[in-house]
């Protein structure tokens, strides 16, 4: 049975609903949470970067350059997030320090030419990979980079129903 609004239990529940952590306490707590979160690294693999000719990038002492897959993934996420498209999953397959395959899942809004979206996403992806890792002779952009639009939203992806 529904309780009357004047019911003491309902009044007390309302008071409890309106209770918030005091601002300084909450700021302290949220900062503490984020400090701990920033200290936790997700698993990542190193990926060999190349020079302009696609050879393993070496410095003057002959050292090779590696980039964390986390950095590559983050750059892809940023590049592929617009008001109308967002990445849902970015899966990099790294074998023996070489990027062998990239699978991208995207969420887009309705009323877009999805082929154009896919084409745009592919060119952005290849641009980011080139920027982060240099030319990758072992990666075939047609067969080793897969882009799938897995979900559509009625409105702007940021505003759509979830």
């Amino acid at each position: 049975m529904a309780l009357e609004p004047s019911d003491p239990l309902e009044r007390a529940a309302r008071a409890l609903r309106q209770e918030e952590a005091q601002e300084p306490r909450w700021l302290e707590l949220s900062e503490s949470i984020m400090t701990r979160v920033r200290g936790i690294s997700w698993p990542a693999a190193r990926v060999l970067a190349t020079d302009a000719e696609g050879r393993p990038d070496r410095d003057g002492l002959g050292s090779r350059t590696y980039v964390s897959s986390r950095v590559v993934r983050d750059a892809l996420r940023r590049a592929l997030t617009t008001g109308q498209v967002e990445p849902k999953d970015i899966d990099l397959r790294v074998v023996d320090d070489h990027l062998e395959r990239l699978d991208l899942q995207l969420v887009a809004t309705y009323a877009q030419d999805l082929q154009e979206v896919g084409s745009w996403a592919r060119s952005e992806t290849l641009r980011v990979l080139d920027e982060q890792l240099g030319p990758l002779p072992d990666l075939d952009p047609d067969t080793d980079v897969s882009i799938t639009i897995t979900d559509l939203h009625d409105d702007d992806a940021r505003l759509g129903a979830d």
Partner: protein
Amino acid sequence: MSSSADLLEDAPAPDGPVTDGTLLRAARLGDQGAFAQIVDRYGPGMFRYARSLVGQEQDAGDVLQEAFVSAWKNLPSFRGDSSLKTWLYRLVHRRAMDHHRVRRPVPVVDEVFAEVVADVSGDPVRQAESRELLADLRRALAGLPETQRACWLLREVEGMSYQDIGETLGLPVGSVRGQLHRGRTTLAERMSRWR
């Protein structure tokens, strides 16, 4: 004609709030800024819930931190079978129950209950009454079995549906209804002096 790249890159920034889905997708890909927004969106409610379960603010803060650290670690495997809110509350509930298992109950002092009250009318008599009302509710809640207390808090304070409560606590919806009914009845009896 503009290219699709132009269309996508020049899309105006949306004015409305960012949805849970967008935050979740970004956080799952390692975006700590998106996760910070999730913390700010659900943290205050989760903290209130944790405090109602464990009693002490310090302990509730610890419980909340553990819940969010667990959320961050497990984000990559979260597939969205339940809503983000339900998942987060499930984590904080589990951490609160773990806390109960490893610590002896701490006597609840009235000062804990009197920190913040909803009545902002400025009327000292009403404020005192609100404090006492809330303190009575806390005492009554502390006397309920854990599941009844959790069901009541999630329904009446956090505004969850029966379905979401069931998912949070791992209970069938029918059981949620039963627990809620018993909890309400007991609380109403214990609060009856305020009629």
